[in-house]
């Protein structure tokens, strides 16, 4: 590590420690680090947006086309119109002119909403529904894992029950005389109806799923913690070596 890197690493280590100081409690060092992060991230991302998106997407094409090319319908559609929309969007900066930028936001929202619907239907609803239609044929073999027989059958059934009960758990509309409604409230004695049991299993699967993901998140964050500690330790030893 050369000196510049060492100094930089030292600063970086200090910043990491400032963030971790939140473990003791909210404190000025932590706040300082947070605001520094926001500032740097904002500056960097802003520059990326200008450099990698707006300039090549809107400015360069116009400069290349020159004045003559401005009449080109292709350019008008792909560059001039979005440029106007962008200019209108910038009017959102000032409250007084904000309403003139609405058209640009409307376009964004329209695209966003459509992407949500299209993505959910073609990306999740259909593929996952189809994926859930697995065969219960005991002689079938899972090409991927090579499972077969009872082992595979059991797994398929578990996944199926999990999918269906979890999906059912989120049901919103209830009839006031749902089995789950009356029996659930009789003080002391709970006599669950079939729906209640079904929902209970669903919630159980949700808890298991969340448990797995929580464990994954803990593992992931602990690796990052290990990486940070390693980084700080390397810096400390580096500094000690350079001094000594």
């Amino acid at each position, binding site marked *: 590590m050369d000196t510049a890197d060492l100094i930089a690493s030292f600063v*970086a280590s200090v910043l*990491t420690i400032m*963030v*971790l100081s939140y*473990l003791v409690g909210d404190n000025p060092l932590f706040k300082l680090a*947070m605001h*520094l*992060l*926001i*500032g*740097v991230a*904002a*500056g*960097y*991302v*802003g*520059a*990326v947006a*200008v*450099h990698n998106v707006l300039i090549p*997407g809107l400015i360069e094409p116009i400069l290349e086309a020159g004045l003559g090319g401005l009449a080109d319908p292709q350019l008008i*559609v*792909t560059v001039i119109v979005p440029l106007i929309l962008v200019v209108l*969007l910038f009017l959102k900066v000032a409250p007084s002119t904000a309403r003139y930028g609405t058209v*640009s936001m*409307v*376009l964004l*929202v329209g*695209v*966003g*909403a*459509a992407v949500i*619907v*299209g*993505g*959910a239907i*073609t990306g*999740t*609803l259909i593929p*996952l*529904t189809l994926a*859930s239609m697995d065969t219960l044929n005991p002689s079938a073999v899972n090409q991927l894992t090579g499972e077969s027989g009872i082992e595979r059958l059991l797994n398929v059934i578990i996944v199926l*029950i*999990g*999918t269906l*009960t*979890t*999906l059912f758990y989120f049901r919103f509309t209830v009839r006031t005389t749902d089995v789950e409604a009356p029996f659930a409230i009789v003080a002391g004695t709970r006599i669950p109806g079939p729906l209640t049991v079904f929902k209970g299993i669903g919630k159980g*699967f*949700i808890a*298991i*799923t969340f*448990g*797995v993901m*929580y*464990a994954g998140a*803990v*593992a992931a*964050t602990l690796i990052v913690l290990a990486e*940070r500690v390693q980084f700080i330790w390397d810096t400390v030893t580096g500094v000690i070596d350079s001094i000594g």
Partner: protein
Amino acid sequence: MRLFRTSALWAAVAAAVGVFVLLGYFVDFDFIQNIRLLFMRWAALLAAAALLVGLTNLAQVHWRKLSQTEEGWIYSALLILAFLVTLVLSLVFGPDDDVTLFIFKYLQFPIEAGLMALLSVTLLVAGFRLVTRRRDVFSLLFLGTALLVMIGTGPALGGSEGPITVVMRDMRAWISQVWSAGGARGIALGVALGATTTGLRVLLGADRPYGS
């Protein structure tokens, strides 16, 4: 009344844009696909522009704190300074210049990584408190599963790979690839149902996040 007409017009525009983009998912006709791609390109450009508007707003908020020396104005000052310095350097040299990358690597990166490291403890504290906070069998199931998976993920206890380790690894694989796969599918399907209706409400003009 005039308000209403304007907002109805916006709703119509959003719906029109949305219909083309949405149909593009289901119908593979050039006409629709081209319009859809065009709208999506515009949207990508507008999103970048909106980011700049947002950043201006961010700067305004903190500038106000600074100028009115509200509580924590000193932090806002630091934020604005960091923002301007990074922005100017990145604009002048470009975001892929060594100077900019140096700032990214030694200022932004360690703080974000620090936050992630902080999260590890946060999650453990939350896990520790869960049973005392939410007294039901599901929080026990949640933590029980988490423990099994963590034991199956982490290295072997006692330093060598014994039969118990093997069992725990298989157990972990079974829970995360079978049991939680079922739950995950159900949740994902449900989320997709909710997302679809949410998107459709916007396209139908019932929800108008762009105001009126």
